[in-house]
């Protein structure tokens, strides 16, 4: 399936207008996801980053413009074919009452199943491998309701992995997690990216996490892409100020050498407005 087209990346969007009903979120948006990258989209609240992710995943139909997957308009492809190429982990997903970890992960196999060929040895193997890769194999028989937030997020990622797609889109996978679990999830993503050569696209809020883990960074504001490129080039004090209206300094992360954003201290002389 891979590499059937020569020019451009597998996933891209051109001249996208994205809207909910009448409210336009983005207009004339061009974006390209480099193959085999760990792309992170950053930007202030309501800048359209989750909306862009939904459009790339085909869960939101663009009002204008096209999303191309392997050179073809994604809306013209059969739903199951897309689901075997591109996986999405939305921000809010509901685990059904009384579902076990293994069952939930097993649901990721849906696009690979047919009416008459529902559960194969292949499915069984992929589910087991996905649980092992995310470190939830020991929890296989547990109810998802009983897990901690970090464990639950790893289970959802395992489900997305079981979908076995070369492209994986994650909408704020670290939200609601404490710092240790955030790092755990991001380390897992980095490993999936490095070891399996998957293309990952994630929306993240924490700039330092984005700079540390991304191989490609897309910064958005007001529905347009302000900058895109390697974190070392994109994440500058000027850009952070432009995108987030936040004065800051950018220094080298002492652990990794990647950019580290340090917000400027509040100036003491400014009176507090009452």
């Amino acid at each position, binding site marked *: 399936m891979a590499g059937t087209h020569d020019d451009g990346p597998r996933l891209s969007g051109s001249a996208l207008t994205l809207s909910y*009903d009448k409210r336009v979120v983005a207009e004339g948006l061009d974006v390209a996801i480099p193959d085999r990258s760990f792309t992170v989209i950053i930007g202030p609240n309501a800048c359209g980053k989750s909306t862009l992710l*939904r459009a790339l*995943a*085909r*869960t939101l139909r663009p009002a204008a413009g096209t999303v191309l997957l392997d050179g073809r308009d994604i809306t013209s492809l059969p*739903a*199951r*074919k*897309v*689901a*075997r190429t*591109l*996986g*999405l*982990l*939305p921000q*809010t*997903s*509901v*685990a*059904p*009452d*009384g*579902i*076990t970890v*293994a*069952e*939930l*992960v*097993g*649901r*990721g196999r*849906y*696009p690979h*199943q047919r*009416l008459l060929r*529902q*559960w194969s040895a292949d*499915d*069984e193997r992929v*589910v*087991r491998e996905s649980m092992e890769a995310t470190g939830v194999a020991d929890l*296989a*028989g*547990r*109810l998802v309701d*009983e897990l901690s937030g970090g464990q639950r997020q790893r289970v959802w990622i395992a489900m997305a992995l079981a*979908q076995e797609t070369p492209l994986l*889109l994650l909408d704020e996978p670290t939200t609601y997690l404490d710092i240790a679990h955030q790092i755990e999830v991001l380390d897992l993503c980095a490993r999936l990216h490095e070891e399996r050569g998957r293309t990952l696209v994630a929306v993240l809020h924490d700039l330092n996490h984005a700079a540390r883990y991304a191989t490609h960074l897309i910064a958005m504001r007001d529905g347009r892409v302000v900058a895109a490129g390697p974190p070392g080039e994109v994440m500058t004090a000027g850009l952070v100020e432009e995108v987030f209206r936040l004065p800051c300094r950018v220094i080298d992360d002492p652990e990794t050498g990647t950019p580290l954003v340090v917000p400027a201290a509040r100036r003491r002389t400014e009176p507090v407005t009452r």
Partner: protein
Amino acid sequence: MTAVRSMPVRRIAGGMPLRFRAVAVGAGCLLLALVFGVLAVGGGDYPMSPSDVVRTVLGGGSPAEDFVVHELRLPRVVTALLVGAALALAGAVFQSLVRNPLGSPDLLGFTQGSSAGALLVVVTGGGSAALAGGAVLGGIVTGVVIYALAWRGGLHSHRLVLVGIGATAILTGVNGYLLTRGRLMEAARAMLWLTGSLDGRGWEDVLPLLAAMAVLAPVVLLGCARPLAITEMGDDLARGLGVRVQGMRLVLLGAAVLLTSLAAAAAGPVSFVALTAPHLARRMTGAPGPNLLAATCTGAALLTGADLAAQRLFAGHQLPVGVVTGVLGGGYLVWLLAAQRKAGRI
């Protein structure tokens, strides 16, 4: 919430074992429904032993037995079986579609629509065939109107609930008005129909529902059960997994409305089966998701059992089956709420 709490280790990997239990529950309920059915056919002014009943159904009865079984009693039992199955299937579909355990057709206005159609026929003096037609038409028209009002670039569960509750309120008022307009005889007949009754059902009452079940049950059970279970995890996630969410909703809503209307046409708006059967099924299978197959079989057992009770509970006096399902279903619901309150869940 402590780590020491017992961990239910039930199934090692997702898939077969779970489906096996759901199928076992379904088969068990179907068997129970058949036992209730045989007992119901055997009872009455011309009592027959269960073995006589089975022999006659299989074609080995005397002419008298043949007449009693095939003409008088079997249509009623088959109606109960099908109405129970259809209502339960529709109820399980609605509960899953609106993501609300109370989302039954009685609550969303579809049943009241059928009632309005039937009452209109009764008040204008129509016969029983017209009454059935009125119930079907009323249900379908209500379904289309609710659907059109709830549609906004897609079908959203909360809008469906709100529009449905509004429709229920309006149609309940309309139905009350229609009842007061009817003459005494007509009103009494209408009341009996509104309670839900299987008295004197013949094959002509069964056939439309049988045809609908033969077509719709496979479509829903085989074609939509898995995508429906996936969609319970969220629309975006389901789309990401390749489910055509809106198309599936449209098919399911259409099927559920048709089944509800035809069930109402055959037996009146029998209460609480659509609400209770899916809950019972879920408790028995212990499986997440809509449990459509188990719910369908549970509904069949529930209604045949309720009709048997309605015929036998008071010697010489038959109750309308809707009274029994109402009392049983209402009681079950109260018990369920009380049990959940004790468990600290509400």
